[in-house]
């Protein structure tokens, strides 16, 4: 990670001075700064003195502020948290506090170890024999190609059915209207008029229909008789009544 060396440049031209140049731009967040400071202690991260580290960090941030460098909020939050941790570590133990300051210090240490481990893993990863840099695939492969070809499927029946379909569709067709049994309006008027004379009280429209007729003829008779009833009502020959929509329609001869 040569490009990062700049951030670790020591003041005093390699005199062994532990102070870091005061620039906050180079750090990847407060944890990164903490880890770098921890590395300055030149001991295994397991044995790091959290107390010393805390003091270093706070001192670093304070000198940055003294120099009126802009310090991002998260660095300040970390500084405040570390100041709290430091005082908690120095004060007599209070069993009420959970987690204990020692536990918090341990967690911070673990976080530093984790970040350090990943930083080192990243460096080791980049240092491996990498394809295209250290090891090479074949420079000019012929390439493999999979050509998809359609195997068209149709059977003889499909073919004949298709031809039949075409012929049936395009042959001139003669349309014949099928004969249907129909009761004309005239017939219906005559029939309703005649039957009305026999019914003195309210009678449903259905009662005027031919009882024995086939269903198709019955429907035609119903439609024609209905229109006939309207016509006769218009002529003042009968009264119509219906209790509610779709209820039975009833007819009665109008009193002369």
């Amino acid at each position, binding site marked *: 990670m040569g490009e990062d060396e700049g951030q670790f440049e020591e003041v005093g031209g390699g005199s062994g001075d532990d102070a870091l140049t005061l620039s906050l731009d180079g750090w990847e967040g407060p944890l990164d700064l903490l880890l770098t400071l921890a590395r300055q202690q030149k001991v295994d991260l397991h044995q790091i003195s959290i107390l010393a580290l805390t003091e270093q960090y706070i001192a670093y941030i304070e000198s940055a502020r003294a120099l009126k460098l802009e310090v991002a909020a998260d660095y300040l939050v970390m500084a405040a948290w570390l100041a709290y941790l430091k005082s908690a570590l120095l004060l007599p133990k209070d069993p009420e506090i959970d987690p204990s300051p020692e536990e918090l210090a341990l967690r911070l240490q673990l976080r530093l170890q984790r970040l350090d481990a990943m930083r080192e893993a990243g460096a080791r990863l980049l240092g491996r024999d990498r394809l295209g840099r250290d090891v090479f695939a074949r*420079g000019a492969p012929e390439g*493999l*190609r999979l050509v998809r070809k359609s195997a*068209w499927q149709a059977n*003889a029946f499909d073919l004949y059915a298709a031809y039949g379909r*075409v012929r*049936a569709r395009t042959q001139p067709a003669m349309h014949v209207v099928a004969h249907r049994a129909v009761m004309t309006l005239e017939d219906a008027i005559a029939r309703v008029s005649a039957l009305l004379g026999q019914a003195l009280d309210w009678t449903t429209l259905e009662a005027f229909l031919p009882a024995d007729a086939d269903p198709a003829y019955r429907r035609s008779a119903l439609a024609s008789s209905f229109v006939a009833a309207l016509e006769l009502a218009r002529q003042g020959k009968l009264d119509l009544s219906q209790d509610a929509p779709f209820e039975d329609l009833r007819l009665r001869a109008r009193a002369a």
Partner: protein
Amino acid sequence: MDDYVRSVEAALFAANGPLSLDDIALYAGEGDVAAALASLADHYAGRGIELVERGGRWHFQTAPDLAHLLRREREEPRRLSRAATETLAIIAYHEPVSRAEIEAIRGVQISRGTLDVLMEAGWVRTAGRRESPGRPLTYATTADFLTHFNLGSRRDLPGIDDLKAAGLLDPLDEEALQLQLESGEDED
């Protein structure tokens, strides 16, 4: 294995193109390039890869007898569309027939792709131009068509009477559907 031969092998493998003896020496360093190449050519003889020289340049290539592996064809069954089936049937019954005639018989235009599909399937071929105004191209079926549909010759195609007897000339489904709607409420 000789380290120099290894280096020549790797250089040839990784190269973007055939390498001359000088090119090889540039990578593998000074050594008996010719001997290394001879040793490699010998080693790869009969394998799936071979070392070949073309105009003083050397490169590895896939053994020519395995070239078919590089371009695999995979057949995917696909059902002929309704339009294509109808077009094929019209050609079979009326050949040689022009595109305009096919469309007149179908009563529907045919898209460009439809005839292409039938030709790709190997069932239809062009059958010359008709000596009539516009000299339209005509189409006919192929021997493969007869084979695929199990026909000895075009005379084996069922005639109109056969189709009628099989119910294939009955009114279209649409009309049957219409009738059914009209009588819908009645119990059948």
